[in-house]
C-alpha cells in the first residue's frame, strides 16, 4: 500500500501560550516545535500499515524550511521519504493550503504512481480549521472519512471506524484510493530510535515553493481569552472534608439521581 501523510509544524506550547507584543503570532522564542497530536498518530498509522502490508510511505508538509525537522521526525520512525512545500512562514488559509497540497499530490502521483491512502490529522492543533483533508479529498474526487480512530485497509477498500455522535461507534467502508482524517487514540505513537534518527538524516526530501495567496479567510490579530482566574475556595483537607463536599453536592443539586 502506498500511503501519504500530511502534517503541520506547530509550536509545542506547553502550559501557557504567550503572544508577541503586536499579537500577530505566538511568541516561539522559548518553544520547541512538533506536529499536531492527531498527526503524530497519522504518521504512526502509515508506518504500521506499511510494516504489516508492505508498500511505501511519504510525509508531506506545507511550512517554513525549519519544518524539515518534523519531516525528519516522521522519517525517523519509519516513513520512507518526504515532501516539503516551503513557505516564507506566513499563515496559509485552508483553501490555499489544500490547493498547494493537491497540486503536489498530482505531480507526485504522475511521477510515482497513485497513493492508495492519504492520511491527515482531523484538525491542526493551532488553527483548528477542520477542513484541509476534506478539501483535498474533494479536489481529488476521493472519498473521505474524518474523526477516525481505527483503520483496517483491505484489498481495494478501507474500513474506518469512529466514535458515533451519541456514543458507541460507527464505521465506513470506502473504496481506495481514499482520504482519512484520524484522531489521537487510533494508536500510541512510538518514539524514534537512535538508528532511526540516523537513517532519517539520509532520506530524501523533495522541495518546492508554492506561491502564497489569499483565499477568503485572513487573520487580523490573536489574543488570549479573558479567563476568569478564580481562587478555589478550600472546603477541607483530607478525608475530614467529606461532609463539607457532600453538603456542596447537595447545594448544587447533583446529589439526587
Amino acid at each position, binding site marked *: 500500500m502506498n500511503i501519504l501523510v500530511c502534517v503541520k509544524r506547530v509550536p509545542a*506550547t506547553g*502550559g*501557557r*501560550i504567550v503572544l508577541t507584543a503586536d499579537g500577530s503570532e*505566538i511568541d516561539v522564542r522559548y518553544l520547541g516545535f512538533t506536529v499536531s*497530536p492527531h498527526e503524530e498518530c497519522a504518521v504512526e498509522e502509515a508506518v504500521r500499515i506499511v510494516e504489516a502490508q508492505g508498500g511505501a510511505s511519504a510525509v508531506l508538509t506545507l511550512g517554513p524550511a525549519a519544518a524539515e525537522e518534523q519531516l525528519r521526525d516522521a522519517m525517523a520512525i519509519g516513513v520512507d521519504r518526504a515532501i516539503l512545500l516551503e513557505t516564507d512562514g506566513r499563515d496559509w488559509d*485552508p*483553501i490555499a493550503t*489544500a490547493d498547494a497540497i493537491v497540486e503536489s499530490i498530482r505531480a507526485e502521483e504522475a511521477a510515482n504512481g497513485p497513493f492508495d491512502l492519504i492520511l491527515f490529522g*482531523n484538525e491542526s*492543533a493551532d*488553527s*483548528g*480549521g*477542520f*477542513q484541509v483533508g*476534506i*478539501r483535498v479529498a*474533494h*479536489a481529488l474526487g476521493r*472519498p*473521505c472519512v*474524518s474523526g477516525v*480512530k481505527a483503520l483496517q485497509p483491505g484489498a481495494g477498500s478501507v*474500513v474506518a471506524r469512529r466514535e*458515533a*455522535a*451519541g*456514543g*458507541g*461507534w*460507527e*464505521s*465506513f*467502508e470506502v473504496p481506495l484510493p481514499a482520504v482519512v482524517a484520524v484522531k*489521537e*487514540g487510533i494508536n*500510541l505513537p512510538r518514539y524514534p530510535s537512535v538508528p532511526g534518527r540516523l537513517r532519517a538524516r539520509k532520506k530524501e526530501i523533495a522541495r518546492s515553493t508554492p506561491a502564497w495567496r489569499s483565499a*477568503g*479567510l*485572513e*487573520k*487580523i490579530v*490573536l489574543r*488570549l*481569552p479573558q479567563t476568569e482566574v*478564580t*481562587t*478555589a*475556595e*478550600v472546603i477541607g483537607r*483530607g*478525608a475530614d*472534608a*467529606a461532609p*463539607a*463536599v*457532600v453538603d456542596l*453536592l447537595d447545594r448544587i443539586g*447533583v446529589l439526587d439521581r
Partner: protein
Amino acid sequence: MSGSVLALVNVVGGAPDKASLEALALARRLATDTGATLEALIIADGATAGAAAAALAGVSATKAIVAEHPGLTTDHPDGWAAAIAQVVETRGPAAVVGAGTERGNELLARVAARLGLPMAANCLSVEASEDRYRLTRQRWAGSLLEDCWLDAPTKLLTVAPNTVAVGERDGSPAPAIEAVPVTLTDADLVVRVTGREAPERGRISLGDAKVVVGGGRGVGSGEGFADLEELAELLGAAVGGSRVVTSAGWRPHSDQIGQTGQRIAPSLYIACGISGAIQHVVGIKAAKHILAINTDPEAPIMNVADYAVIGDLHTVVPAISAEIRRRSSSA
C-alpha cells in the same frame, strides 16, 4: 444588507440538539444585525424534520427547509453536504451557520469544499462589516482566540460549542416547512455508515453526564480509578481523564477530556489528581462548577476550580463515597 442567514439544525431524538440551538442563536443575531431573514435547514428525514421544526417556535426562523431525497439518510455525510450545497447554490444565502461539533465542522467543511468557498470553524462572535465578516474564532481548541476576516459571497461558519447563549424565545411561530427536492449522484452516497456498535449498556456518556469525575496523573494507575468509579456510580456520573491518563493506557482514549479529547459541560466536574494543564482545561471550561481534589494547593487547577479539597484523592474520594452512603441509608 439583506438576504437570508441559513442555520443548519442537527436533530437528536426528534429535537434540535444544543449545539444547533447555539448556532441558531448566533445566526439569529447575525440576521437581526444585517436585516436578513433567518431560515433553518433541518438535517433529518421529512417526518423527523417536521417535529424538529415545531420545536423551533420562538427563534424567529421564518422557514424550515427540508431536503427531499429518498436515498438520503443521516448515514450519508457527503450526501448531506451535496444537498446543502445545492440549497446554497439555488437560494444564495448571505451566510450558513452550523454547529462547531465534530460532525458540524465536518459537514460544513464538505459543503465548503463543494462550493469552493472559505469556511471558518468554531466562531464565538460575528460582526458584519460591509461585504465581509469580522469573526472571533477559537484556535488551540479555545486556549487562543483569533480575530479574522471572512470574505466570500456566502459566508460559511460554525459556532464553537458552549460559547454562545441559546437565548430567550420570543412569540414567533414555528417556521413554515419548505420541502426542497435535491439531486444526488451515486458518488455523493459512497461515504456512508456501513456498521454501528451501540454504546456500552448503562454507560453515561461524558457529553451527557450531569456530573463528571475526572482523573489525572495523581490517580497513579488504571486500578486507581476504582475509587473514582465508585463515586461516579453513586452520583450517576461519567468517568473521564486527562491526556496523561489515556496516553498511559489507564483509560481508553474515548474517556479523554481536553484539546484532543472531548469538551464537556456538566453541572459539576470533580477533578481528581489533575494539575490543570491548559490542554485539559479547555475541555472543562464549560462546566458550571468545578471541584478540585489535589495534594498540591498551588496546582494550576486551583485557578480554574471553584472549590478545592487539599489531600490525597485516594483518601478523599472514598471518604466522600462513604459519606454519601451514610446519608442515604440514614435518610
